[in-house]
């Protein structure tokens, strides 16, 4: 298990898995099987996958600690970047079909509509996190500062959940589901850091790879 997690095969396999939702969309597009409202289909799919990948990314640390699998941290960056990838696609479905690539019109909408505002804020916030996700940036910023910056991913996830919650009309099951997951992960995180705070030895965010 551990040796597999350390192998480059594991990374390649995960990459393929992460790409699966995108390939699914491509496949559905080629088949012309996009429901009666293709734009909404893309929007919902990419939005859902953004939230899922944020949750996956946030789950790495708890899994790593609970199962004592330090190797897992190798995959965190990829998962986070895929969250950003799906967020970019999600944003494009809004900028293009909804706003006809009209940046001024889009900005008006962003300022006026709270659910767009929070979604857009979450997207903007993901950009610096994606840009500074490299080993070079960890060195440049220093582990501690880098980690502080990257805790913003919790905020991204929370904003994403609010964005979803404010979108739905009355059936709140899905946003509440994602909200619960993000909440649990955050609570675990706080609980863990308090419990371990005095004794913890700071490991490199890059782990052992």
């Amino acid at each position, binding site marked *: 298990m551990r040796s597999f997690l350390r192998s480059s095969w594991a990374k390649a396999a995960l990459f393929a898995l992460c790409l699966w939702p995108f390939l699914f969309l491509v496949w559905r597009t080629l088949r012309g099987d996009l*429901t009666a*409202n*293709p734009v909404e289909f893309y929007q919902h799919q990419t939005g859902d996958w953004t939230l899922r990948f944020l949750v996956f990314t946030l789950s790495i640390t708890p899994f790593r600690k609970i199962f004592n699998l330090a190797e897992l941290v190798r995959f965190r960056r990829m998962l986070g970047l895929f969250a950003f990838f799906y967020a970019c696609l999600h944003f494009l479905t809004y900028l293009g*079909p909804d706003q006809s690539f009209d940046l001024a019109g889009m900005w008006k909408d962003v300022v006026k509509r*709270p*659910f767009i505002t929070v979604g857009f804020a979450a997207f903007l916030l993901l950009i610096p996190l994606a840009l500074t996700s490299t080993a070079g940036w960890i060195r440049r910023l220093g582990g501690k500062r880098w980690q502080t910056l990257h805790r913003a991913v919790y905020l991204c996830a929370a904003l994403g959940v609010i964005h979803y919650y404010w*979108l739905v*009309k009355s059936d709140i099951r899905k946003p509440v589901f994602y909200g619960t997951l993000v909440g649990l992960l955050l609570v675990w995180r706080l609980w863990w850091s308090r419990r371990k705070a005095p004794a913890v030895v700071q490991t490199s965010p890059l782990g052992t790879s």
Partner: protein
Amino acid sequence: MSAPKERRKADTFEPVRHPIGRRGRIIQRGDETSEMLIKKPSSLRQADVTPRQVYWNRRKFLEGLGVAGAAAVSGRALMRLWSPGVAYAGTKLNTVKSSYTLDEKITPANDVTHYNNFYEFGSDKGDPAKNSQKWVTTPWTVSVEGDVKVPRKYSLDEILQLAPLEERIYRHRCVERWSIVVPWIGYSLSTILRLAQPTEKAKYVAFQSFFDHNQMPDAKYTGLEYPYVEGLRLDEAMHPLTLLCVGMYGETLPNQDGAPVRMVVPWKYGYKSIKSIVKIKLVSSEPPTTWNRQASNEYGFYSNVNPSVDHPRWSQATERRLGEIFMHKTLMFNGYADQVASMYAGMDLKKFH
């Protein structure tokens, strides 16, 4: 009264003048006017709505409409057998021409039958087509009651016969910013309201949908209160555009689109066009409406399509035709301003949204 006798009477379909017709009241229909010819009320008792009666009446009725009745009925059952996923296997309806038409591309029937807001069957757009197929809508009655001189329960067959069925092509605009163009089948709601003869007290019309949580188990997750209720001001309800709808695309309504009888109010957001109606009640004050109960700041009683009054969470200035990529401009009263704007003269449409 013996059943066979009753059945034979129903089978003859002899047009009989309704009391309203006898008194010489004229009902307008499109460009022409004609006296309403409907069955004599005495032949339309409660006894008529027993399942067997309805069944036999329907077969006979379909033949009367020029449809291969039995073939259509069993054909429908066969269709269900070999393609259970395809709900669009309705019975053909014969229609007369209507002046209500549009020079716009009609939305494919498959889209209109597989992209539905019918929360009783689930809140995903694909849910109603999946979850409504086992729902049995026969026998069906619609009760017209409240502040009326002639309250009465109508069987579906009676409703199908009250007036010639017109095919009307309307724009339909959902509050969620998508829209469709649909050839609905039915006649003006005013037809049935005139038969009921609203009293002076009647100022509004309250509608109620069918609800049965055993047959609609997904409804409980959707965050709405059931049964679904809607309402119109009496003048809106009497407006000729306001359609009592029994079919679309040449056939009876599929379950997921509000079988067997629904409203279509084309200048209002889609949720005003209540589906699967069991009760039409004339009342003296503004009746509660489902989405208004759920969020009164977002969904007003009037809910007229209005590009300049935004939903609190999104703009209503534009809409997307199903199947298209880019948005286009939403029209005032969904393009029916010439016909309906006068009803709202002097009203603050932002306040009464």
